């Protein structure tokens, strides 16, 4: 008890003795863990390189400016590809992710015991693996190109859309569901009338949000050969053409800002 009586007066402490000791012990363990981890990293680092990092940075910057603006002409096609990778990937993910969410949500799944865990496993597998790794895998399987990028984005986004949508489904107001059920509606009707309208804004928001993220991710998929503007970046960096790379960086920056602005506008309009 934090309150104890000591020499006649009540004494208050935030935590009692044992809790306080446990807290200190927890901090000690956490600190030790971080220090140990740092030791491992420090061992594997060439400190010589780190020390002259500022020289490297200055050197890099010197080689990046001024950007070679004429390179812009060759970026429009990759930019269009990037946009397509993100958009088509998101669309495929929606088509696959929505049914998955209904299978995963406790209140809509056909079977809590068999279907739900399976759906959850698919969701977590899709989410655990970054789209770049999916791209690595797909490039290795079906060869480099835009198609690999589209599928990589789709595979990563299925889990994202599935997870957020099934959570939204589980959080809906049960009152409306009961009301529709009490009219004698069938299960699909209950879903259509009581559940879908409740999650529709969330669904639209999630889709647009994911599209925004996918624009970002599709700009770098090319680094592993999966199409889009990243291909150009990979080529420029491997040729040490940093003036071209800086143009690409700027294009990516503008694209990302534009997509963020657009998705914010759309989400604002929906909500």
């Amino acid at each position, binding site marked *: 008890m934090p309150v104890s009586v000591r020499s006649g007066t009540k004494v208050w402490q935030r935590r009692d003795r044992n809790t306080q000791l446990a807290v200190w012990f927890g901090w000690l363990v956490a600190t030790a863990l*971080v220090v140990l*981890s*740092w030791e491992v*990293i420090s061992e594997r680092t*060439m400190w010589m390189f780190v020390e002259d990092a500022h020289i490297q940075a200055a050197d*890099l910057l010197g080689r990046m400016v001024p950007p070679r603006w004429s390179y812009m002409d060759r970026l429009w096609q990759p930019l*269009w590809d990037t946009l397509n990778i993100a958009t*088509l990937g998101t669309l495929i993910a929606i088509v696959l992710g929505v049914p998955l969410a209904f299978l995963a949500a406790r209140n809509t799944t056909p079977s809590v015991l068999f279907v739900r865990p399976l759906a959850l496993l698919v969701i977590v597998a899709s989410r655990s693996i*970054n789209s770049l790794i999916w791209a690595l895998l797909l490039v290795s399987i079906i060869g480099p*190109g835009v198609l690999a990028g589209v599928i990589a984005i789709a595979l990563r986004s299925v889990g994202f859309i599935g997870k957020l949508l099934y959570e939204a489904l589980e959080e809906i107001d049960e009152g409306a569901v009961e009301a529709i059920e009490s009219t004698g509606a069938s299960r699909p009707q209950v879903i259509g009338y009581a559940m879908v309208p409740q999650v529709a804004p969330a669904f639209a928001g999630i889709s647009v949000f994911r599209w925004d993220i996918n624009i970002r991710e599709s700009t770098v998929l090319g680094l592993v050969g999966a199409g889009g503007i990243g291909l150009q970046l990979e080529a420029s960096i491997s040729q040490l053409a940093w003036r071209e790379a800086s143009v690409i960086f700027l294009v990516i920056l503008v694209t990302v800002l534009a997509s963020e602005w657009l998705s914010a506008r759309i989400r604002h309009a929906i909500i």
Partner: protein
Amino acid sequence: MTTAAIDRARRWRPPPLIANPVLRWALLLGAVVYLALAVSGIPVNWERVSEGLERGGRFLAGFLYPDFSSRFGEIFEGFVESLVMTVVATVLGLLVSIPVALGAARNLAPLPVYYFCRGLIALSRTFQEIIVAILFVAMFGFGPFAGVLTLVFGTVGFLSKLLAEDIEDIDRSQVEAIRATGGSWFQLLNYGVQPQVMPRLIGLSLYRLDINFRESAVIGIVGAGGIGATLNTAFDRYEYDVAAAILLVIIVIVMIAEYSSSAIRRWVQ
């Protein structure tokens, strides 16, 4: 029922999503045209794809019979590196994020500080981790140090933004009450702000820990340490059973992280 009423009942339709018919049809048409253009613009080498199906089968088979043993040393080292990078980057990122978040909360910070911190956050959020990793590797050399810096950079953008939003949403009256007792600025933070945002801060940090681990598996591809390099090599050598083993470990670690973090979050609530 009057005929007018019947007529009205017959004509009733649910209102369309977009009220303006011109806009509605234009958007639909635009979407169709875009899709046609986008899909037709994808070059597909069907020969290569059909060839790949066999490899895809091998990859799926690799999932059923993952090979942990033949490259155990590399996999183990890679994961240790990924995990230590995750821990260090999350802690460092958290330490940097808190002051940045305080500066980026409109209700606490003066305007110049606010703009500075918001700018910092925007900068960090705009660039993909992988691009940042490329630059840091070029500056600091190959290895986990560049990776840690990359993850810290990403963590600051993520944590500060969400934490700042949370700080902006706190109950003002609790802060006002502490102010009315004559508490100083730091006491205000400690008593009025910290208790309100603490559960969310813990939740966000755990979430970011999870993200950092996943990212650490990627930035290795460009040489910034972690399991990504091993994974990349496995794909390059078409060793799908090794790749499957690595992916399975990633999935399991992410699942463990998710379950334990939701447990911790429930506990701090």
